[in-house]
């Protein structure tokens, strides 16, 4: 089973990296979502998946019973999902703002700073 998990996570990450290498800002945004989903799954798998009962202490008992899933990675992933959402939301706002300011959704056209030229060249020109 762990090989199937590994395959699925690897496939998600591979797709994420391919999209991350794109120059279209939306595809980069998709990549961020894919990669964070895959990373959460990775943590989940790393926490061990032998047991499928929710980590909730049954009524009438005082301790978590045998056969419950590992609660620790779940707590970590829960906040990671929300933080991941905040990250994606911020990136989406950045995408919109960049589009409004520059008028392009391609990173190779969002090059106003590069269009000014290399600072080294400017310095060289000063020194001549």
């Amino acid at each position, binding site marked *: 089973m762990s090989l199937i998990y590994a395959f699925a996570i690897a496939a998600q990450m591979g797709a994420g990296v391919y999209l991350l290498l794109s120059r279209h800002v939306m595809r980069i945004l998709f990549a961020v979502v894919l990669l964070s989903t895959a990373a959460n799954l990775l943590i989940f798998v790393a926490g061990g998946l032998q047991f499928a009962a*929710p980590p*909730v202490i049954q009524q009438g008992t005082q301790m978590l019973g045998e056969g419950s899933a590992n609660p620790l990675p779940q707590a970590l992933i*829960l*906040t990671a999902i*929300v933080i991941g*959402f*905040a990250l994606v*939301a911020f990136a*989406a*706002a950045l995408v*919109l703002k960049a589009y409004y300011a520059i008028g392009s959704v391609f990173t190779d056209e969002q090059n106003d700073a590069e269009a000014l030229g290399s600072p080294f060249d400017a310095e060289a020109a000063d020194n001549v």
Partner: protein
Amino acid sequence: MSVIFSTMSRLFFVLMLLASVYMLFRGHNEPGGGFIGGLFAALAFALLALADSVKTARKALIVHPMVLIGAGLFLSFLSGLPGLVSHGSFLTHWWVELGSAHVGTATAFDIGVFMVVIGGVLSLVFRFYEGVEQ
């Protein structure tokens, strides 16, 4: 069609809001909690914003999302102070037994989380959809 959708959405809104509060408070003993409750409450308002208008949703929320963010953070912070005073340890919670249920500062902490999540998500949803409508 849109009238039906709009009416249904109000019904769903109320139901989801109730569900989210239920999620928040049962969270300590059953699946749920501040994050989940907050997300579902935010979804309820988002549904209202999409089905009706952002203006309606803003009105339904009464306060500005930023106020919720600030108040939530402050509440979570405050919930840690009693423990700091009594045990010298920030966010060590106090508990009171009310019948069979325990109520403590942890509940206040989770309510703070709930408010921050609602405020954070909605500030963005409203902002993103305000541009679309025009």
